[in-house]
């Protein structure tokens, strides 16, 4: 039996994906399906004074045009940041109110997608417009919870001022990060089909059970009457987590026209009808003594939030876990502007905060006169600095040492601007990566047959990460089967509860439920075969039988393969529900998850702090004449517990680093300030790295054992790679040129003028 865990396994769906036979939600075409399209607001704030739908209705092929006045039985749900499953607390088309540019105002149903879109173009809206601001004003900010610290939004340890006063060197730096949009390759889409009061929704989703519970709740239906199907997801990154207006509008429109309706959101509309990464400001005040040990650490994060929701992605909770320091103060602030509700985008707490933290650490290292890697070593700690609990495992410096070796960090010129190559200035920079290990309750149904097959079923999702494959691997390893013999079914709300594909939880939490299912199968089989008169395990105390990757072992060296033992079970198969309930999961948290919400525990429990760590190094080149910034080399080393699949893990980490490069150099949702509107809502003008930008990206995966996080020893890795990349690149730019760039992204215009 070949090894199936911690090895390279090609995705079980790879062939289907590259041949176009994997079917995504929008590929499903129910009989009689009509097409939907949205008309969206041209103004940001104000109200609709009148809507003329006559031209749209007259367009050949158009079946119906709905507005806030005419769409019957349109239901909404509470917003996520107000404790519900919705992507936002404000629901367009409930009335005349307009609260952000690009908000849906009318919904057209037609016989073809082209007719529906043309109909949407022909909807003519009269507005009454009020002033609007798309950018936050950090001067007008507030602490969530009115400063009462109920949610841990302000935290103080020691005496910050004393730490700053006593420091031999300090930095006080402010960084900014822009609005960004996820831009998954697969467009947002929803197809709704009503049969009486039974509803089926096909929709790419990171959380099918949330979707099902939310929709059922909104329509007052039992959950069993609502099916939600999301077999594959073509990238989500946080954008397909909540219930959005486009989904609820499609469901209502389908009900109103009495036929299935499919809506595929256009790329420009994808910038306004769902979530995004809010812009932020990060202020760091750090102090260090002459030996380079931190004496003071203050981080104030101010993030953009809409008028009607408090979007809190508390980055300070992560930064304060990084380095030892006796005097720490963190503060989480929000500032309002006129947009839709932002949300999670890959490493929602970490990407922007680690750009600030790791840039400030670099600046302080320089002031103290230490090598940036040694500066991190001087401040490494095995105890969480504010929670005072040990890390369940922490391989930060191992990561730095591994990446430094392969990268050739020792060849870094000591002086700023000391490295050149022809017309290029060259710089090296490094930064820390981390991601919390979040924990959610999960179930998984596992069935093993004596014929040598197994089935795994759970309401998890493959958002492009390889989840089908790793769930099969976990079962195959435990049950002693080839990966191909395990059939994994996911992406349906009716399946056993599994976590949202968010917070990098699926592999760890859902994988652990699959693992538990396999152990339960072994126990049941052991009970049967131990009670039999004959056989290798006859008469053995079943509670002392262990499962060793496909083999049942008795206490005295007896053994029998699980597959063989299963043949002695009368049914010839065993089916169980595996569960994962980490001790840190309280009954309330478990309940929340099972009710369709998110009951997350970690990364800090009363006993331990759980984080994955890594270190990234970048070589940057800046051209003397064109001022172009290029990254010929990007190396990272990471430790995140057990690697389930070295191939898909590698892809996740590499993809994260490439995205990190995009955050550093390309990605920004541009804005028009006077009219409070996003400007580059398309992927011609919203830049992301192209192949020519991505040169050498090297990923090293370190071995690390962690028995606390979960039975598999797995930490999440989906978001780890993006964290720190922007700082590593910014630090390298500083090394090459002496310019400290504090606003993402870094562009030619910054290099010329800075």
């Amino acid at each position: 039996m070949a090894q199936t865990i911690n090895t390279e396994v090609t995705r079980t769906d790879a062939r289907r994906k590259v041949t176009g036979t994997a079917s995504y939600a929008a590929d499903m075409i129910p009989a009689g399906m009509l097409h939907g399209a949205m008309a969206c607001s041209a103004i940001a704030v104000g109200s609709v004074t009148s809507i003329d739908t006559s031209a749209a209705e007259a367009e050949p092929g158009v079946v119906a045009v709905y507005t806030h006045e005419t769409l019957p039985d349109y239901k909404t749900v509470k917003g996520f940041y107000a404790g519900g499953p919705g992507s936002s607390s404000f629901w367009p088309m409930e009335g005349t109110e307009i609260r952000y540019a690009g908000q849906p105002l009318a919904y057209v149903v037609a016989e073809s997608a082209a007719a529906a879109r043309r109909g949407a173009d022909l909807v003519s809206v009269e507005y009454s417009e009020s002033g609007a601001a798309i950018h936050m004003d950090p001067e007008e900010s507030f602490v969530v919870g009115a400063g009462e610290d109920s949610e841990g939004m302000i935290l103080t340890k020691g005496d910050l001022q004393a730490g700053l006063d006593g420091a031999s060197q300090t930095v006080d730096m402010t960084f900014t990060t822009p609005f960004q949009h996820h831009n998954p390759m697969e467009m947002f889409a929803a197809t709704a089909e009503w049969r009486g009061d039974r509803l089926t929704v096909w929709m790419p989703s990171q959380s099918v059970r949330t979707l099902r519970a939310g929709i059922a709740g909104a329509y007052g239906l039992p959950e069993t009457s609502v099916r939600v199907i999301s077999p594959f997801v073509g990238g989500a990154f946080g954008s397909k987590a909540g219930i959005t207006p486009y989904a609820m509008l499609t469901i209502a429109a389908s009900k109103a026209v009495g036929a299935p309706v499919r809506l595929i959101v256009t790329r420009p509309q994808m910038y306004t009808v769902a979530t995004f990464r809010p812009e932020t400001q990060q202020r760091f005040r750090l102090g260090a003594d002459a030996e380079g040990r931190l004496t003071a650490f203050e981080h104030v994060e101010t993030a953009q939030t809409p008028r009607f929701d408090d979007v809190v992605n508390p980055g300070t909770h992560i930064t304060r876990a990084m380095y030892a320091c006796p005097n720490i103060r963190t503060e989480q602030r929000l500032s309002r502007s006129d947009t839709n509700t932002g949300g999670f985008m890959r490493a929602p707490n970490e990407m922007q905060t680690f750009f600030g933290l790791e840039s400030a650490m670099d600046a302080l290292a320089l002031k103290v006169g230490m090598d940036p890697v040694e500066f991190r070593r001087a401040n490494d700690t095995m105890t969480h600095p504010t929670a005072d609990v040990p890390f369940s495992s922490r391989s930060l410096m191992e990561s730095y040492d591994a990446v430094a070796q392969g990268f050739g960090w020792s060849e870094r010129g000591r002086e700023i601007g000391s490295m050149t190559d022809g017309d290029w200035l060259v710089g090296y920079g490094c930064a820390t990566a981390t991601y919390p290990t979040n924990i959610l309750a999960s179930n998984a149904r596992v069935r093993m047959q004596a014929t040598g097959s197994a089935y795994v079923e759970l309401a998890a999702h493959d958002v492009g990460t390889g989840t089908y494959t790793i769930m099969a691997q976990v079962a195959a390893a435990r049950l002693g089967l080839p990966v191909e013999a395990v059939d994994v079914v996911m992406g349906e709300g009716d399946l056993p509860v599994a976590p949202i594909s968010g917070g990098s939880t699926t592999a760890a939490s859902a994988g652990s439920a699959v693992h538990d299912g396999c152990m339960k199968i072994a126990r049941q089989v052991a009970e049967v075969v131990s009670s039999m008169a004959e056989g290798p395990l006859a008469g053995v105390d079943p509670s002392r039988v262990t499962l060793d990757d496909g083999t049942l072992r008795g206490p005295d060296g007896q053994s029998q393969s699980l597959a063989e033992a299963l043949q002695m079970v009368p049914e010839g198969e065993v089916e169980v529900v595996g569960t994962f309930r980490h001790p840190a999961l309280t009954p309330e948290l478990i309940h929340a998850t099972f009710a369709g919400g998110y009951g997350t525990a970690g990364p800090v429990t009363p006993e331990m702090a759980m984080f994955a760590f890594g270190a990234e190094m970048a070589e940057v080149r800046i051209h003397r004449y064109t001022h172009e910034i290029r990254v010929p080399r990007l190396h990272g080393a990471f430790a995140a517990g057990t690697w389930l699949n070295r191939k898909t893990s590698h892809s996740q980490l590499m993809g994260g680093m490439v995205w990190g490069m995009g955050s550093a150099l390309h990605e920004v949702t541009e804005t028009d300030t006077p009219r409070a509107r996003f400007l580059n809502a398309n992927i011609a003008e919203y830049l992301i790295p192209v192949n020519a930008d991505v040169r050498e990206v090297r990923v090293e995966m370190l071995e690390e054992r962690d028995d606390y996080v979960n039975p598999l020893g797995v930490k999440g890795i989906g978001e780890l790679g993006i964290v720190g990349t922007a700082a590593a690149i910014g630090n390298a730019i500083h090394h090459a040129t002496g310019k400290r760039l504090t606003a993402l992204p870094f562009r030619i215009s910054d290099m010329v003028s800075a």
Partner: protein
Amino acid sequence: MKNFTYSRPDAVGAATEAAAADGATIIAGGTTMVDLMKIGVLEPDALVDISGLSDLEGFEVGSDRMRFGALAKMSTVADDQAVIDAFPALSESLWKAASPQLRNVATLGGNILQRTRCPYFRDTAFAQCNKRAPGSGCAALDGGHTNLHAIFGGSSSCVAMYPGDFAQALVAFDAEVSTRGPGGTRTIPFAELHVAPGDDPSVETVLEPGEIVTGITLPVIPAMANSTYLKARDRESYAFASASAAVGLEMDGDTVRDVRIGLGGVAATPHRARAAEESLRGQALTEETAREAGRIAFEDAEPLDGSAYKIALGADVVAGALLQAKSRMGGE
């Protein structure tokens, strides 16, 4: 997208006639047209597809002239060894534009007539845009985002930038376009094809309704052989120029006999930096004189807040391109 009629004539005369009708528009590779139709910026009633006029696909590089048919594909011309040898800047200006997929379908005629990337022009939700809706105002000038806008040739009605690369190699090397319209054929100096925005930025060229660009001709001059196209852009490929320069040099020993400088990413129309060229003629080409030429090239620039960076950048790009062209000559 609005419904339209579609025809694909197979003779230039018929195409011209069809395209001259009210509401008719020419489409070649469609990479500009289809984009703008999808987002409702252009709503022609009739599309006249000229891609069937196969006579316009050819091109030849002679000893004293080069001639390119308007339907030659960007990628075909960029890859052609005779073009690369005779006029590297021209090949590079095509190579460094758009993406391979676009270059494989986009035509030279369509390329020179591509439309601005001004974000306000491209989003009909903005009520103000004189280019899209004459008389409506200019959102860019009304407090808008101006990083992508022209620092030469703008007016109080419009500061849109001409975004193309290829045109810079044409404008600095005395290209001409030949056309056929309902009134017959004519030849237009390339530098006069595009018109400054003035009071009516919706008019971008001197072409009459139905007038088809049939070809582009260039005299072969010595500065072509030592030419280069330097393009500063925020990503390594598939990005418009923040600033660019098409430069060609003819040297007489250590002194410059002839020099050509076309500037991209900075002007309302394809832009030749004549004063900078003049500053170099008869001079030695050194880092210093190259930088001085760059400075002169941007002396008269009129930037907006967002586009001010283009002055320093453009000057450096000109200097870098001149030195690059020189180093190529030296066989370095």
